[in-house]
């Protein structure tokens, strides 16, 4: 299998020039300051009229050196760092790291804590996909879905804030479970160790609203002919190319690969709930957009089922404040909203890890851009980049 085959039909647009004028090409920098690059991404493109080729992404404007920083911190302190990798879905970044550490310590996490982790991860997924629903039509020119999606996202963020204290960087996981007393200091440990009383009821009500808003967004955006014309057939990624580049999450599933880490891996108790995994057919921008809309609905249903069946119990296993993690190496990966996020931890038995390798989804997702954008015209570059749904913090770590 080679991927240099340029005959693959990736773009339907043909801005063919009938008079072949020899014109020199122009080097255009799209970014790093640009309304549509989701952060400080820079694309250096050779532009001839509207058609571009040799699009090279230049990244690293947000590189914060997390892997190096993790070597001087202990495990609980690293959690504060890794929230900030994919800041749109804050809670979901912590989960694979904590699960990996617990695997090394061979801890058993109480079921209630696992359910809470699952609920919050799915909320993070809804939040991240709603941001995508908001920003993608904006890049295509439609300004109105932005407000509707962000308004509905406020409901989820309010719930997240009520239980974790933070909208974007919850820092709610602890080794062995979740933070025992949400929102108060540990002086009240004897009084109440659990979630706010109204949280579960409010969550269920909010999920009904989220389902309604998903319907509203579908009405507003999905039937719009202009959006269909701008996204169908644009940026087609075949499934073998997607897998070999390391595309994951909705990007991979849109290309027709039915692979969801929630179904095959047991980092959280997803097997207890019924949910579908939407899979696309063509791998174009439309599929990637529509898939995320369907995933919002599936996440809302998972949360409703989880809220109904959440068991009671402690929120954290008994773990001392300062602890050392035994020697070993482990890799745990999770289905984050952007794709597959994983942490490879090399532990030497100390307070902190010897090496942490962070596998972030958006890094691999945008490594396909040079291949995908070859010969694209500028409006299509924006449409395709937006549909990959990446965040620069996730790319640059």
């Amino acid at each position, binding site marked *: 299998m080679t991927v240099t085959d340029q005959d693959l039909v990736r773009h339907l647009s043909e801005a063919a020039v009938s008079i072949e004028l020899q014109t020199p090409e122009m080097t255009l920098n799209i970014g790093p300051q640009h309304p549509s690059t989701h952060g400080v991404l820079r694309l250096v493109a050779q532009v001839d009229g509207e058609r571009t080729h040799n699009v090279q992404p230049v990244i690293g404007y947000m590189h914060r050196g997390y892997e190096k920083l993790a070597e001087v911190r202990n495990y609980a302190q690293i959690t504060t760092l890794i929230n900030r990798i994919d800041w749109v879905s804050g809670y979901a970044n912590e989960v694979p790291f904590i699960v990996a550490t617990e*695997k090394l310590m061979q801890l*058993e996490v109480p079921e209630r804590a696992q359910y809470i982790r699952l609920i919050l991860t799915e909320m993070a997924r809804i939040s991240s996909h709603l941001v995508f629903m908001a920003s993608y039509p904006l890049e295509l020119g439609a300004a109105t879905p932005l407000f509707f999606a962000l308004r509905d996202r406020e409901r989820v963020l309010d719930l997240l804030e009520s239980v974790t204290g933070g909208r974007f960087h919850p820092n709610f996981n602890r080794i062995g479970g979740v933070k025992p007393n949400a929102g108060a200091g540990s002086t009240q440990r004897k009084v109440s160790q659990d979630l706010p009383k109204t949280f579960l009821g409010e969550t269920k009500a909010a999920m009904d609203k989220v389902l309604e808003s998903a319907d509203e967004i579908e009405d507003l955006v999905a039937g719009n002919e202009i959006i269909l014309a701008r996204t169908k057939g644009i940026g087609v990624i075949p499934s073998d190319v997607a897998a070999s580049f390391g595309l994951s999450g909705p990007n991979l599933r849109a290309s027709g690969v039915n692979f969801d880490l929630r179904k095959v891996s*047991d980092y959280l108790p997803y097997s207890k709930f019924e949910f579908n995994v939407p899979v696309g057919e063509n791998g174009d921008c439309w599929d990637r957009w529509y898939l995320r809309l369907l995933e919002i609905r599936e996440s809302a249903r998972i949360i409703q089922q989880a809220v109904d069946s959440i068991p009671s119990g402690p929120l954290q296993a008994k773990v001392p404040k*300062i602890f050392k993690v035994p020697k070993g*190496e*482990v890799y745990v990966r999770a289905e984050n909203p952007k794709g597959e996020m994983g942490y490879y931890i090399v532990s030497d*038995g100390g307070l902190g890890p*010897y090496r942490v390798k962070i596998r972030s989804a958006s890094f*691999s997702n945008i490594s396909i851009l040079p291949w995908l954008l070859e010969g694209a015209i500028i409006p299509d570059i924006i449409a395709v980049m937006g549909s990959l749904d990446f965040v620069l913090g996730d790319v640059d770590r």
Partner: protein
Amino acid sequence: MTTSPSEAPAEAPAEEDTTEAASPLADLANEIAGSIAGTAEVNFETAKVRVDPDRWVEALTAARDEHGLLFFSWLSAVDWRNEVAVGDKLTSEVEERYELLAAVSDLTEGRLVIYSTNLDRDKPTIASLTAVYPGANWHEREAAEMFGIDFLGHPQLEKLYLPEGFLGNPLRKSFPLLSREVKPWPGMVDVEGMPGQADEEEPAAEDAEA
């Protein structure tokens, strides 16, 4: 180095026994190791296959073609040193080397295998994987600039994250963190309890719960 499929489950769901789950992974790892003259181990549900550097590309080509591991997850390295400029020293002496890791997975059952090879500590060089998995392109660029590993045959081995003119390889253990040179981080010392909480303070236990 043994396979350990019967470890205690950390948070496995009720109906799936870890023994069952680890076993296909262990089988796959052993099969791969057998075919490429390497060694396999499965610890903490993570399968690792060690191969020789000369057979690196061959092993991963076989992974893609014969064992169905089509999904390229990541590629990175671990710098094993006995003297470190940052963080804690290793508790036991190791052979100093770079351990190159590449993780690939299948797309049906989610069996992920990490291929590992050891590179020379003074002049780490290895063949590039971009012809086998195009996704390795950026991962190799990152490993090259962070560890100083030279990938032969890589089409575009330029800096990825670091600005041009940056000297040094940051993720090497010999590369210091400037802020740690200035002063040690107060966050690394033992945590004190909140005021008025002395009786509730957990003893600073040295060993983790097992």
